[in-house]
């Protein structure tokens, strides 16, 4: 167990270092000379050279990379090239919005996805299974942002049930926050639930036909007990993995959901940065999201090995 986790953590660290190299080189590949841009168009070559030295751009790439990693580790993400604000501050104000949205969406996805998946497996061959399978194929085929636009059109504009845009922090006013976040979270959550649904159904079907489930039934245990204590618990191994792997999709989905519902989150910060060529912000977001993603993958693997001992035996 410990050895397996250590090994996986080591792999994740390698991935993180490689990713930081990619981002570092990617930033060097950006068009334009940052020293020239900072010094201004009328600067003399000497002034440009001075700025370049100040930024450390006259040093060799490995030295620059070391400097960059040192800054990252000390929590210094640089200043926005557009507004001059520290990027860390910008992220600190927008991250909570995205985090609340993602958590709420994940809750919707798991409740809806696992619930429907279990129903489909238990009601195999009946209309319920057909309905769940059709719903999941449909949800996989329909872009979630389109559902978002339609939801705004029908639920917000047409029926006036939810606000079309805006954000309230759950820490300030939980009820209003719920009201504002419900539509975005359902749009984002249902998109992810399609995959969860499929995998839960498949994994439940497999467990339900296993010998130990038949034994449990033969012993005369109630079907509810067999389902909950035996089948569902064993199926959760696959479900946990799938949900963990969907977190990447959650990040991408959050960006577009924030755009549709006008939420001031990390997604909006990123898109604004791309359109205004605010490279400091882009670089920070890319490296942060990547690090988050690597850590999540590691956590999924750790959980996975905890739930299914065979995984670490292999290692």
């Amino acid at each position: 167990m410990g050895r397996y986790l250590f090994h996986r953590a080591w792999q994740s660290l390698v991935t993180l270092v490689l990713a930081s190299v990619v981002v570092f080189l990617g930033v060097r590949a950006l068009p334009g000379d940052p020293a020239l841009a900072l010094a201004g168009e009328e600067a003399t070559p000497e002034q440009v050279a001075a700025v370049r030295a100040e930024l450390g751009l006259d040093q060799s790439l490995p030295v620059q990379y070391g400097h960059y990693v040192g800054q990252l580790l000390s929590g210094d993400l640089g200043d926005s090239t557009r507004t001059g604000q520290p990027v860390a501050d910008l992220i600190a104000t927008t991250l909570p919005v995205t985090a609340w949205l993602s958590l709420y969406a994940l809750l919707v996805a798991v409740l809806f996805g696992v619930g429907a998946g279990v129903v489909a497996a238990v009601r195999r061959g009946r209309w319920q299974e057909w309905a769940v399978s059709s719903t999941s194929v449909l949800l996989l085929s329909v872009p979630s942002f389109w559902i978002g636009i339609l939801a705004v059109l029908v639920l917000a504009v047409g029926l006036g049930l939810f606000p079309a845009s805006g954000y309230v922090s759950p820490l300030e006013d939980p009820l209003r926050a719920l009201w504002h976040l419900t539509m975005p979270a359902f749009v984002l959550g249902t998109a992810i639930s399609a995959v969860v649904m499929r995998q839960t159904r498949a994994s439940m079907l497999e467990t339900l036909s296993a010998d130990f489930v038949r034994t449990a039934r033969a012993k005369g245990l109630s079907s509810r007990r067999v389902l909950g204590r035996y089948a569902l618990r064993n199926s959760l191994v696959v479900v946990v993995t799938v949900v963990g792997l969907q977190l990447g999709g959650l990040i991408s989905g959050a960006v577009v959901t924030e755009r549709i519902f006008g939420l001031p989150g990390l997604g909006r910060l990123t898109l604004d940065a791309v359109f205004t060529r605010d490279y400091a912000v882009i670089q920070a977001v890319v490296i942060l999201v990547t690090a988050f993603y690597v850590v999540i993958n590691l956590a999924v693997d750790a959980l996975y090995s905890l739930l299914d001992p065979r995984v670490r035996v292999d290692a």
Partner: protein
Amino acid sequence: MATATPSARAETGRTAEPGGGAPAGAPLGGGGDGLGGGRGRVLRKVVRDPKGVVGLALLAVVVLGALLAPLLAPYGPTEVHFETPFQRPLTVGYLLGTDDLGRDVLSRILFGLRASLEVGALAVGLAVVVGVPLGLVAGWWRGVDAVVSRLTDLLLAFPFLIVAVGLAAIGGASLGNAAVALGVAAVPTMIRVVRAETLRTRGRPFVDAARTMDASGPRILARHVLPNAASAIIVQATIIMPTAVIGEALLSFLGLGIQPPTPSLGIMLSDAQQYLLRAPSAAVFPGVAIAVICLGFNLFGDALRDALDPLTVPARRRRRQKAAAR
């Protein structure tokens, strides 16, 4: 071992769904020669499956619409009619209405289908060109496996939207960059699928036979392993395609993909959101078009997967068996 986890996960992913992928040891499609001998049989199975029929029909509509767009479209996709903006659907001359600039929605959708399929095909192409050789090599030579696994991990570390953001920052948003971002996102799973297939095939007797006849590694990979992996690659392609189509729409919607005035279903949705109250229908049809493309690929892909999996029993026969058991 460096590769235990990815393979363990790829395996669960594949065998978790009874209809998805064949369990290790069970030959895909016919007598162990992949698509070779069983091609007709597999196609017949797909055509007998209602999912396959509906999927193929939807794909036929989409592909014909895209190919014949210049003939079918009543107007040019960027042709503006300032005198008739916001026409409702079923107006004379504009079957699906017009947008804010009086551009014909039907014409734009037909040309938008082209962009969607183009990006999807490019993404699939990139995943195949990069992923298949790497998967074959990783499954065959243990030494390369560790390196390829690190690369897979690295690629998996970047969500596709982040890649798209990076590429847009470096080279500007474009159809090509969107396709590259989506293709890069599809590469790691393709590598894993092909690697798993290679590992499965390398222990089979005909590979041993080829080895004893002194065939070189590349030759065995090309002549024996690749044909056996073909069905898994094709199934994977039917999964990548709809993902890429939705991804293209999403990137273009955000302004990170195809740039206006080139028609793209994502851009149409982005535009429609600006005047949602005046012309709600303009926000409906492009979304339906995306759904039709993806539904086509998903249904066809499901049917194909079922047809290639010898363990899947068609629903009709399952019912009959059940009735007989009673």
